[in-house]
């Protein structure tokens, strides 16, 4: 064996080292090392000493049997530690306590590691071949195991108690030596030799238990004494501190476990009491707009499984209560006041609901970080009170009226375009909460028709804008008719130009009256009752002329005249001064009768015009009992009766040159509801047939729920209504009941 040592090389033929002799030599090295560790005055090892020790081991291991002492040296290596620990280390530790013990332990551990490092270098040769050959633990491990078995196992429990005591001390606000604790806990980790078992079983589990009971005690007194915000502040602080604790001296793996325990004791156990605290709990915070506290509540409960559910629930209840209060307010005002003030109140309600939505949406986004639970809570809350009726008007109607007020002339002219756009945007969002969307559509359509036909629309762009928004939210089918209506008006204007041209080219056809006709496409517009009033001859001519013109443009189309929507400008030749009267076509028909006769009885007018009593009374009332008395009524009572007679009021005058004589609008509500109900019946039929056609066989409950789902975009179908339609479909042989199971239905092709 050749070996290089420094600059010299040796040849074989070395002297055999005897075990006892060799070990004595090694002992000198070990003793020297111990002295260094004990802090006694002792110079460090120089390289020659180190080499001698190393070589001694090497030689003793490579000698020929029976002088190969590997096994014995391996054992003596361990014994060296054991001896040192038993004689010096352990006694030193056992005589100390608490923090002093901890310090001693850290020192002794550090020393031990140094000892292991050095000795394993001296005995290194064993690591190279011997341990592998015999599958024995390497020297490093042997060294550590000695400490573990002799020192750690003896003391870890006592140490753990001391550490925990210090932790609790720190929790109570006292300063402690964090670096010391870190070093102590590092021992637990290192002693595991790659596994966290020792740390977890011998320290962490106890620490967690202790922490839990510590916080349990704190929580039980805080929950009694503190308000909800204060308690939350404390909790937040505690969690922060515990995280810091982990960062400073606990092992990082303890963090989630520790946090979970603290959260549990502070926030889970007392969740209910905390949230429901009478004057400071969640409800109170919402009531008093305590945004910061609510944000904190969200932060704290967000990380706890199912922690946010109760908060979201209280939020939902709160918003619902606020919404209900608004509705109730409007209802109360409406029942106590006159009709027109009441309707203003209803419009105020919509504004307030929009404001409520804005307010709580901010909460959802900012306090509750747009969490789905809170979006859902807000949605469900609004769905509850947005579907309530106020003074007989459904929310669908109220919303449609609100839109009408914004879009009509004289409605919201004070608002900027931006403000109007913004409001329309919000209104459409509100529609999402209303279940009877089809009812809204019908009311909207009726009012849109009125705006378009009587030129009461304030701004074309806004009209189109809201239709676009409605289309985006509810789909093309929702707005197709309305869009058709708006287009009709544009076409009508073009048509009118052609008509005037036609009249220009055919002077003989000219009826002598300025005539404007708006042709509507039947499918788009609401259905209007129109009955054959006997028109004055002048108007009859107009109708015929237009018909003639229209036939030059399109054949195969039928024109149905809706006189109830017409407007007429009449010149009233009163004694004092002539005044232009802007009236409806019907009113004009009544007035024109007086061109030929001075006085007419109710029945005369009735027979001449061929109207219903209801309509005639309305007409005559508007002309003789309202603000402008164009006709004098005999007797001059406040209402029209069938025995009255009427005369042209030549004495009538007004300071204006032109006056509008309005007809009070007929209540469209009943008709709208009827029309919508009818459409719903068809829609339910179609949905049932569609579903059954694709499924062929389906159980009753499933059919009903699928039906409800399919129709939910437009309305919430009544279960009874669905059942009724199903029975109708059975009678019409679209469906049949299954013979075996009467709760199943079959599609009949």
């Amino acid at each position: 064996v050749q070996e290089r040592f420094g600059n010299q090389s040796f040849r074989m033929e070395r002297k055999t080292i005897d075990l006892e002799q060799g070990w004595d030599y090694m002992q000198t090295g070990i003793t020297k090392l111990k002295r260094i560790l004990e802090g006694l005055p002792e110079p460090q090892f120089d390289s020659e000493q180190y080499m001698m020790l190393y070589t001694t081991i090497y030689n003793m291991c490579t000698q020929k049997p029976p002088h190969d002492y590997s096994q014995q040296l391996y054992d003596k290596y361990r014994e060296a530690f054991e001896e040192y620990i038993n004689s010096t280390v352990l006694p030193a530790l056992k005589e100390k306590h608490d923090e002093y013990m901890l310090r001693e332990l850290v020192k002794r551990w550090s020393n031990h590691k140094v000892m292991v490092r050095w000795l394993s270098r001296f005995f290194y040769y064993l690591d190279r071949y011997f341990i592998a050959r015999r599958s024995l633990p390497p020297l490093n491990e042997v060294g550590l195991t000695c400490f573990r078995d002799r020192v750690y196992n003896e003391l870890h429990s006592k140490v753990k108690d001391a550490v925990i005591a210090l932790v609790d001390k720190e929790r109570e606000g006292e300063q402690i030596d964090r670096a010391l604790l870190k070093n102590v806990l590092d021992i637990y980790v290192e002693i595991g030799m790659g596994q966290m078992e020792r740390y977890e079983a011998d320290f962490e589990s106890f620490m967690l238990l202790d922490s839990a009971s510590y916080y349990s005690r704190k929580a039980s007194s805080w929950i009694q004494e503190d308000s909800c915000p204060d308690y939350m502040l404390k909790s937040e602080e505690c969690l922060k501190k515990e995280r810091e604790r982990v960062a400073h001296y606990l092992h990082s793996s303890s963090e989630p476990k520790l946090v979970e325990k603290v959260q549990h004791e502070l926030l889970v156990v007392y969740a209910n009491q905390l949230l429901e605290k009478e004057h400071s709990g969640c409800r109170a915070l919402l009531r008093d707009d305590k945004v910061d506290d609510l944000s904190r509540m969200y932060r704290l409960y967000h990380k706890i499984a199912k922690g946010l559910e109760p908060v979201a629930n209280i939020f939902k209840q709160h918003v619902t209560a606020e919404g209900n209060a608004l509705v109730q307010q409007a209802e109360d005002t409406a029942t106590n006041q006159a009709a027109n003030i009441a309707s203003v109140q209803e419009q105020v309600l919509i504004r307030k609901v929009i404001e409520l939505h804005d307010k709580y949406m901010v909460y959802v986004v900012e306090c509750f970080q747009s969490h789905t639970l809170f979006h859902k809570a807000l949605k469900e809350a609004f769905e509850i009170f947005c579907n309530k009726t106020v003074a007989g008007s459904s929310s669908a109607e109220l919303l449609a009226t609100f839109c009408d007020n914004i879009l009509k002339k004289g409605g919201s002219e004070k608002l900027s375009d931006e403000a109007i756009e913004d409001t329309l945007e919000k209104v459409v969002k509100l529609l999402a909460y209303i279940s009877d969307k089809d009812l809204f559509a019908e009311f909207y359509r009726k009012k849109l028709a009125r705006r378009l036909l009587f030129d009461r629309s304030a701004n074309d762009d806004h009209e189109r804008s809201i239709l676009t928004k409605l289309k985006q939210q509810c789909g093309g089918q929702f707005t197709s008719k309305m869009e058709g209506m708006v287009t009709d008006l544009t076409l009508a204007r073009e048509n009118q130009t052609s008509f005037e041209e036609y009249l220009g080219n055919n002077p003989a056809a000219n009826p002598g009256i300025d005539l404007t006709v708006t042709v509507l496409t039947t499918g788009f517009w609401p259905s209007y009752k129109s009955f054959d009033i006997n028109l004055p001859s002048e108007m009859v001519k107009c109708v015929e002329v237009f018909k003639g013109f229209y036939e030059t443009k399109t054949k195969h189309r039928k024109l149905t005249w809706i006189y109830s929507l017409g407007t007429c400008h009449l010149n009233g030749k009163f004694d004092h001064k002539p005044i232009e009267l802007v009236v409806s076509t019907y009113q004009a028909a009544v007035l024109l009768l007086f061109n030929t006769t001075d006085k007419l009885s109710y029945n005369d007018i009735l027979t001449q015009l061929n109207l219903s009593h209801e309509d005639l009374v309305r007409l005559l009332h508007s002309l003789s009992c309202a603000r402008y008395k164009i006709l004098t009524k005999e007797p001059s009572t406040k209402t029209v009766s069938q025995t009255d007679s009427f005369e042209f009021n030549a004495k009538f005058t007004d300071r204006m040159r032109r006056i509008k004589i309005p007809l009070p609008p007929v209540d469209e509500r009943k008709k709208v509801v009827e029309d919508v109900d009818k459409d719903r019946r068809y829609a339910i039929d179609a949905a049932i047939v569609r579903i059954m056609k694709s499924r062929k066989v389906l159980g009753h409950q499933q059919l009903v729920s699928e039906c409800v789902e399919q129709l939910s975009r437009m309305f919430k179908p009544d279960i009874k209504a669905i059942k009724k339609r199903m029975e109708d479909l059975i009678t019409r042989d679209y469906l049949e009941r299954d013979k075996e199971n009467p709760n199943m239905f079959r599609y009949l092709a």
Partner: protein
Amino acid sequence: MPRTASKTTKKRSKPYTVTSSDTDPVPSASSKTKKSAKENDEKYKLFNKYANTSSGVIDPEGIEKLCSKLKVSHTDIKILMLAWKMKSERQGYFTKAEWRRALKALKVDTTKKLKKALPELEKEVRKPLNFADFYAYAFRYCLTDERQNCIDIETICQLLDMVLGSTFRDQVDHFVDYLKIQNDYKVITMDQWMGFYRFCNEISFPDMTNYSLELAWPLILDNFFEWMREKQA
């Protein structure tokens, strides 16, 4: 017999199901021929006793006569059962073939024998399997028109009393009361008719604890159920 039912128009009509045929199976063996011919003679003789000679069928008058001979009221369920047995198609009329069919099945050829056979017939019809069929038949029998598929309330009330009165007295009484005061329905469909039978058989009465609005009971029974509950409260 209950009075005939009212008409309604159908959107899609199934062909009116006929449950009888007028053609008789032709007896094959000649030895049988003589015997069955003789038997048939007897039946036809009996038939002619009650039939209207010009129309060739037993008409309502003939049935009245038959009833008085049998000593049963013409509103007795047994006559309806007889109609069922003979698969009679038209209310108030028995054809020759129908007559023969019933008498053959009952193995009778005189009025006296027929009268004796009626209780047996009733027992047979009341067997659960037969009764369901009979119950449905009773409804169809009251329809006068091929295009018609429902019966007016008044007729239904009488029919219910006749057909279910003896077995489900309580249910029939209450339901009839309800039918008379409600306004939702002016006529009853086959589905509703069968639904009520199912109701009587499945639902404990009058507590109705096993009734559920979630199931596919006809709406009229849901309404009946709610009306009963209100009364009981």
